[in-house]
């Protein structure tokens, strides 16, 4: 059971962002506790990816407040987010296709030699280590990631997020491109990370994923938060009602 008595790991309060007059995210508040997985549900264009890109530093919010461990956090770009140990696995994976796995894993945080030159061999060695844990079948260390399969590319993106001691992990549709076997691997990984006290935002439009993997679910529609519910206390139909009709299941209070 998740202990929600202490300070949340992440609090996003009253977040607003609009693009050219469209309120993509309209006064939305969500939070996340250590060791918890919070699902973000909604249709395409509901604003879930936009909300989460504010946390990962890809977008700058118009108004609102982000608190990390109860302290106000200033996140203006992806570098800031990384400083708060926020790691993101983007839906597009955000890999440089022309570089190999190690270069992608360490992109922006290269290991360097004492002379300040990038140490490719050391990075490859580290990549081999983490891949042996995440995806033991991974062998293509010296080829550009464009030569990899969808699942292999996904594992590079996941390795990048978990290698650097993430405390807050954002997963945007992490299983969308995966087969059943690899989806199972991601599910196991999420359990593992939860046990380490990492908080995870999981964006998905698949209700079954959310029911299986998440502790709570926040549903968005048209840029607004419909509500946040404990996954244990609702049914698939309740969630569907929230997503499609924007209807909050009566007795559930805001979390």
């Amino acid at each position, binding site marked *: 059971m998740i202990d929600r008595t202490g300070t949340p790991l992440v609090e996003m309060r009253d977040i607003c962002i609009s693009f050219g007059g469209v309120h993509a995210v309209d006064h939305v508040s969500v939070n996340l506790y250590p060791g918890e997985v919070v699902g973000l549900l909604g249709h395409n264009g509901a604003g879930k990816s936009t909300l989460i890109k504010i946390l*990962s530093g*890809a977008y700058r919010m118009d108004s609102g407040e982000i608190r990390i461990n109860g302290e106000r956090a200033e996140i203006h*770009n*992806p*570098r800031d987010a*990384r400083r708060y140990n926020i790691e*993101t696995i*983007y839906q*597009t*994976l*955000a*890999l*440089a*296709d*022309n*570089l190999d796995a190690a*270069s*992608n894993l360490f*992109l*922006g*945080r*290269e290991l*360097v030699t004492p002379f*300040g*030159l*990038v140490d490719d*061999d*050391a990075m*490859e*060695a580290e990549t081999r280590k983490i891949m042996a844990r995440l995806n033991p079948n991974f*062998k293509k260390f010296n080829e*550009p990631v*464009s*030569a990899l399969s969808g699942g292999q590319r996904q594992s590079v993106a996941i390795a990048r997020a978990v290698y650097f001691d993430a405390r807050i992990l954002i997963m945007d549709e992490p299983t969308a491109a995966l087969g059943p076997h690899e989806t199972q691997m991601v599910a196991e990984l999420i359990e593992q990370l939860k046990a380490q006290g990492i908080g995870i935002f999981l964006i998905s439009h698949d209700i079954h994923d959310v029911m299986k993997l998440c502790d709570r679910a926040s549903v968005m529609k048209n840029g607004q938060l419909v509500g946040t519910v404990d996954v244990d206390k609702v049914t698939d139909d309740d969630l569907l009602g929230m997503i499609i009709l924007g209807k909050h299941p009566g007795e559930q209070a805001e979390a």
Partner: protein
Amino acid sequence: MTHSEAELSPAHPKKSFVQTLELDLRLLGMIGAFAILCIGFDLVTGGRFLTPRNIFNLTIQTVSVAIMATGMVFVIVTRHIDLSVGALLATCSAVMAMTQTEILPNMLGLGLGHPLIPWVTIVFGILVGTLIGAFHGWLVGYLTIPAFIVTLGGLLIWRNVGWYMTSGKTIGPLDPTFMKFGGINGTLGATWSWVAGLLALAAALYGLWASRKNKLRHGFPVKPLWAEGVLAALISGAILGFVAILNAYEVPLARLKRDFEAQGLTLPEGYTEAYGIPISVLLLIFIAVGMTMLARRTRLGRYIFAAGGNPDAAELSGINTRLLTVKIFALMGALCAISAVVASARLTNHSNDIGTLDELRVIAAAVIGGTALAGGFGTIHGAILGALIMQSLQSGMAMVGVDAPLQNIVVGAVLVLAVLIDILYRRKTGAR
């Protein structure tokens, strides 16, 4: 832990000779095309193309474009273009010509021939080039004006800024030390050429050895020792052969006589002197090594290629892609200034039309050398080889006596054909 080649081999066919050496097939193809070109011209001209004298001339004619082509690789890799390099070269050349003949000797009163003049001039010229380049980069990166437009404007502006500064006059003669960077006026001579060649050889062999040692330390697969040996032999042969050829070009007797008489001496009977490696070629080699290091072994280089492969991914990885654009164009500007030193020194003066159409030669060199306009791919040595192929084609045709318009038609066709071959090659190997 490590998966040795032996474990994998049942699934894979036996590696070919070239694969074992881990040579770049693309590069081999280019070298092959270059060799065919040279041998072809040599046959048609009756052995006049592959003489030490002509090879010497080819190298010094290539330097200016090749230096800029190394910078153009980074510009194109990040999906930009720079159409202003020839014009920027002209402005830098004009600035440096004015600095060394007018500003420093007369206005600052150093007097002509002061030993500081060439060095202050060069530093100032590089500074101007860097600043103009950085300004282009700022317009592209921060104000998000397409590089095509910024540098198309730059092409008109800098060509004519140079003209305006000098009132269209040809300025010369330039400082004697400055002119040593031009080619034939500054060479190492036989002894120092061998010293430079042996140093380069030692550095190359050490590089091979250090890379192998590092790979072994991490337990990665390495090439068999015999393959390293073959590679070392190829490199040694190339370096020493190059020095030997340049050393075989001897200073003409008439010129030696003149030089001796200038010092009040008479030319001893049977005395000969070789030109050896031109200083400008040495400069190109240093720049090539430096730029290759930058591309492969520094964070800046890694970010350039990452931003070229996927700009969004680079941005999301925390790379400041706007500042990166400024740095790339600033570097391009600095290289234009260095090329301006070589080009004006080779002509022994600054003339108004210096560097005209160089932007096209530079872009063509980079593209023939395998830089992909879609971004993300390109090598420094490829671009230099591209410049060498273009120059050989041009001077070879001139030597054969092909009409000037036909020469340009052929060069244009070769450019398009080279890119077509590159596209087909990439499609076949599946590397996009």
